[in-house]
């Protein structure tokens, strides 16, 4: 498929499929899904609802969600509250295989598993999340993350950061480093800093969290900053790029951090490294120079590798942010497109919504939202549809949005893992 003329590429794919249609009508088509996170589980369940046979490959027997993990880090809920097994996914009719896909073989239309088996597919959907760049910050490699957590993939890393915060003596400095865009969950670091500040203010009031940022502006900035002024004047400090926020190096042994602003010796250090699509995507030729996977905005089919679809964080989805909400809505669109393509029908031009709720404190929530549509080869924001919660909202509205954020999470987790 051509990189530029996606529309024509789509038609080529359709022609090939219509030729294969008589055979497909007899045998149900088989879709393999790589990754059992938000995008993967959502697409697998939607494809099963459409009558297709689906095998989902995910190494971990349990999924720990990044959404709500900042609340776990701040001691507001146990990690068990954000941990799910795959029994509900199996009950929905998805065949779940706990293994790792080590190679995708587009010519043979099969994937190779670490366990040695192969899985054949008619179409493949990849929702493998992100890869962390352990080569980007001098001193911060994978070994260093065993003592200096990133906690940007939830699970053991989340628990480690929560333990370090809990063990810290009052009076300590917590440092949080944030990369440039694009990365998973643009407002996530600021929600994390807010909830850590809330923890410090209520439990260790002589302590403080400092954000060292590689940017001068960030998602939901006016909402976070007005909350910080009100709630955490003594407990949170943001150091933007212009004030020396950019990192130079970290020494994992001495546990010191050098930024343009100076040398820091924090008691707790949380480093969010720059990110790319996961290694499997790079090895399969799904990524371009950006490090992410370009996709057709109607089908989420790779523009580089026909027959393979990419959704969720790994995809370069135009104006859509990398969020669980986006991964879910992309999964619905992709499932319908895969169903249509396998049936020899032309997929319909989609509309997608993203809404992300964030907390500045346990009962202080707000949202960012947007509606997206294809425009030639990318997804763009429908003009006028994007925006933030109002800056001057009264406390009861903040409380209501905090409750809606919890309602979204609970409903989503029931829909995916229930």
């Amino acid at each position, binding site marked *: 498929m051509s990189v530029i003329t996606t529309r024509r590429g789509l038609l080529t794919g359709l022609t090939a499929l219509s030729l294969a249609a008589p055979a497909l009508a007899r045998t149900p088509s088989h879709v393999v899904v790589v990754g059992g996170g938000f995008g993967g589980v959502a697409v697998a369940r939607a494809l099963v*609802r459409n009558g297709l046979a689906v095998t989902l490959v995910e190494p971990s027997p349990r999924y720990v969600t990044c959404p709500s993990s900042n609340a776990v880090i701040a001691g507001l809920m146990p990690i068990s509250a954000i941990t799910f097994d795959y029994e509900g996914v199996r009950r929905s009719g998805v065949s779940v295989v706990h293994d790792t896909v080590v190679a995708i073989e587009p010519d043979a239309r099969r994937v190779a598993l670490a366990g040695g088996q192969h899985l054949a597919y008619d179409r493949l959907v990849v929702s493998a999340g992100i890869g962390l760049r352990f080569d980007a910050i001098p001193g911060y490699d994978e070994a260093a993350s065993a003592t200096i957590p990133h906690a940007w993939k939830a699970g053991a890393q989340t628990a480690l950061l929560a333990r370090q915060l809990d063990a810290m003596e009052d009076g300590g400095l917590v440092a949080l480093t944030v990369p440039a865009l694009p990365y998973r969950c643009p407002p996530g670091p600021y929600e994390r800093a807010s909830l850590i500040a809330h923890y410090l203010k209520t439990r260790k009031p002589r302590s403080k969290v400092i954000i060292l940022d590689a940017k001068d502006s960030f998602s939901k900035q006016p909402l976070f900053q007005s909350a910080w002024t009100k709630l955490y004047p003594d407990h949170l400090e943001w150091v933007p790029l212009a004030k020396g926020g950019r990192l130079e190096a970290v020494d994992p042994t001495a546990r010191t951090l050098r930024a343009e602003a100076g040398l820091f010796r924090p008691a707790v250090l949380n480093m969010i490294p720059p990110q790319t699509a996961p290694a499997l995507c790079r090895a399969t030729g799904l990524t371009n120079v950006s490090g992410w996977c370009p996709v057709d905005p109607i089908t989420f089919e790779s523009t580089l590798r026909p027959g393979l679809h990419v959704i969720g964080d790994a995809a370069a989805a135009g104006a859509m942010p990398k969020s669980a909400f986006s991964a879910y809505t992309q999964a619905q669109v992709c499932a319908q497109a895969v169903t249509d393509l396998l049936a020899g029908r032309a997929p319909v031009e989609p509309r997608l919504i993203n809404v992300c709720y964030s907390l500045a404190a346990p009962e202080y929530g707000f949202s960012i939202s947007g509606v997206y549509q294809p425009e030639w080869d990318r997804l763009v924001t429908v003009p*006028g549809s994007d925006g933030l919660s109002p800056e001057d909202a009264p406390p009861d509205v903040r409380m209501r949005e905090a409750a809606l954020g919890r309602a979204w999470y609970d409903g989503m987790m029931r829909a995916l893992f229930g």
Partner: protein
Amino acid sequence: MTALATSGLILLAANRASAEPLAPGAASCLACHENRVGATTSGFPTLGTLSAQQIEAALAAYRSGRRDGTVMPRIAKGFSDIEARAIAESLARPEAAPR
């Protein structure tokens, strides 16, 4: 095809055939709303109890600013009248798209 893939195929028998696709955008609404009648929701109004006309009218009211809300005034601005009508018709049918 390996044994693993075949086990997925057997399960297929239990699944119903392709449901009628939802109107563009409607699947995204279900990231928050339930549209099954009798669905228990905490927080988001259930759409399955509303008629297509009621959903369409609500979207128009949010879009024009006549009706207040947290996210709906913003979301409604992402859809034209025609798109909103198609979505309303998709979601008001209680049997459409169980989550």
